[in-house]
C-alpha cells in the first residue's frame, strides 16, 4: 500500500478528482494549503506599500492505493493537473505500514 500525496493548483482539483475516479479510485482527502517551490512568490502593492505573497494557495490531495495502482494514479494526476506552466505542483509516494477502516476494523487492502 502506498500513500500518494499530490500538491496541485486549486482550480485543477476537480479535474484531478474526476481523473482518479475514472481509473477506479474510491476515496481521497483534500486540504487547502499554501506553499512555494520554484514558482516562488510575487509582489503586489496595497495602499502604496509593497508586499510579497510568498506562500501561494495550493490544494493537497491524499489517497492510499494498492501498490499496483500507483503508476496509473500518478499518470492520471499528472495528466489532469498539468498546465505546462511553472507552479503545477508535485506528486510523491510513501509506503504505508498499516491501514485500518474505523467502522469495521478491516485491515490492509480490504480497508482501501
Amino acid at each position, binding site marked *: 500500500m502506498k500513500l500518494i500525496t499530490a500538491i496541485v493548483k486549486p482550480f485543477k482539483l476537480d479535474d484531478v478528482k474526476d481523473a482518479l475516479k475514472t481509473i477506479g479510485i474510491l476515496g481521497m482527502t483534500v486540504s487547502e494549503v499554501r506553499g512555494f517551490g520554484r514558482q516562488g512568490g510575487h509582489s*503586489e*502593492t*496595497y*495602499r*502604496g506599500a509593497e508586499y510579497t505573497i510568498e506562500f501561494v494557495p495550493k490544494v493537497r490531495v491524499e489517497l492510499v492505493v494498492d501498490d499496483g495502482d500507483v503508476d496509473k494514479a500518478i499518470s492520471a494526476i499528472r495528466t489532469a493537473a498539468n498546465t505546462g506552466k511553472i507552479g503545477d505542483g508535485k506528486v510523491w509516494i510513501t509506503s504505508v505500514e498499516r491501514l485500518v477502516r474505523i467502522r469495521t476494523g478491516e485491515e490492509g487492502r480490504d480497508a482501501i
Partner: protein
Amino acid sequence: MRSDLELSTGRRWAKRLLIATTVSTGAVIAAGGISAMAADEFDAEAAVTTLGSQTNLLWVVIGAMLVIFMQAGFALVETGFCRAKHAAHVVSTNFAIFGLGFIGFFFIGFPLAFGGFSYAAFGMDQPVGDALLGSGNWVFLWKGGWALSGDGMTPAVLGFFLYMVAFMDTVATIPTGSMAERWKWNSFVVWGLFAGAVYYPLFAAWTWGGGWLAKTWDTMSLGAGYVDFAGSGVVHAVGGVAALAGAIVLGPRIGKFGADGKPRALPGHHIPMAMLGTFILLFGWFGFNAASTFAATDVQFATVATNTAIAGAFGAVAGMFWITKRTGKPDPGMMANGMLAGLVAITAPCAFVAPWAAAVIGVIAAVLAIETVFIVERKFKIDDPVGAIAVHGVNGSFGVIAVGIFSNGSYGAGWNGSPSEGIEGIIKGDWGQLGAQLLGLAVIWTVIFGISFAFFKIQNALTKGGIRSKEEDEVMGLDLPEMGVAAYPEFNLR
C-alpha cells in the same frame, strides 16, 4: 408677507431669507387664485406657508435618516480595510459610537453648539437658548435645551437635533478608522462621549451655531464669514484632525514598519465589504449635503445632490487612474478613498459651485488623498489603516478652501446674516471669502487639533497602561481579549 418667515427678526443663517422668499412667493401665487372666491374662510397664504414649512421639516428628517445610515457605511469600510482578527472589535467601535456620541450630544453637546440657533423655514422659529460664553459677534458657546428638556422642544427643534446628531456621529466615528486594531475599548468609549458632548460642539458652535467664525464678515470684513455648506470643515476636517492626533498618540500597529522604517502592507481582510460601505456612504451623502438646504422649498437641493454625485464619480475615476499610475494596478482601496475624498471635498462648496467645478474638485481631491496616504505613511511614519487622515482631514480642508476658490456667486445671499449677495471665490475676483475659509482652517488645525491631541495625551497618561491595547492582545487580535467573541470563529486567522 407673513412676518414669521422674514429675516428682520432673524438670528443666524440668512439663507433662510432665500427660503422665506421661495415659500412666500408660492403663497402669493396660490393666494391670488383662491382668495378671490373664499377670502374670508380660507387663508391660502398661511396654508401654503405652513405646508412649505412642514415639507421642509420632512426633508430635514429624511436627511437625518440618510446620514445616520452612513454609520453603516463607515462600519463596513473600516472593518473591510482591517484584518480579520480585529474585525469584531473594529465593527463594534463603529456600532457603539452611534449611541455614545448621541448621549454626549443629547445632554450637553446640542445646547453648547446650537442653543442659539433658529431657522423659521422648517418651523424652528425661536432658538431654545442664548449665549453661554461670549456675546454679540463673539459667541463661543451656547446654552438652552439641556437634555432636550424645557420649553420650546417643538417637533422642528427635535427634527433639527436628529439631523445634527447624525453629523456629530460622523465626526466621532472618523478616528475609529485611523486608530483601528490597537485602541483599547474602554478608552474608545470615553472618546465617544467626549466627541458628542464637547469636541464636535466647539467648532460647530463657532460656525453653524452662529458663533464668532460665522461673524468674521462683520468683525474682519472677510467675505460672508466662514462658509461651510454641509461640513467639509465642521464635520470632516474636525474628525480628520482627531484621527491624526489619535494615530500619533497610539503609534503604528505592530509590524506596520520594518526595521528599516519602510512601511509594510497589512492588507484588509474584506475588500468587497469596504467597497459596499463606500457605496452606502455615497448614498447617505445625499442626505448629508442635499438636505443641508434645510428646505425642500429651496430647490438648490437638486444642484447640491448633483454636484455631490459629480465629485464622487470624478473622484473615484481619478483615484483609479492615479493609483494605477503610481503603483501599476487600480487598488480597490484607493478607488474607494478617491470617491470618498471627492465627496468630502465637495461637502462645503456643493451649493455654491458650478458642475464643472464639482468635477475639478473631485479630481483634485482624489489625487490629494492618494498622495497624502503616501506622505503620512512614508514620510511621517503614521499608521492610518483606512486613510482617514487623507480622506477626511486633508480633503475636508481642501473643501473648505474650495469654497473660497470656486464659488460663483449664484447662491448664498445673506449667508451668516451678512450683506453678501452670493458666495464668491477667487474665480469671481473676490479674495475675502478665501480669507474667511483660511481662518477657519487655521483654527481647525491649531485649536481643534490641539484639543484632540491633548485629549488623547491626557487620557493616555491617566489610563492605567495607556489607551493602547496590550501587545499580546494586538498580536492575537483584539476580538477575543477585548470583545470576548471572534468575528470569524470558524477560521484560523493570522
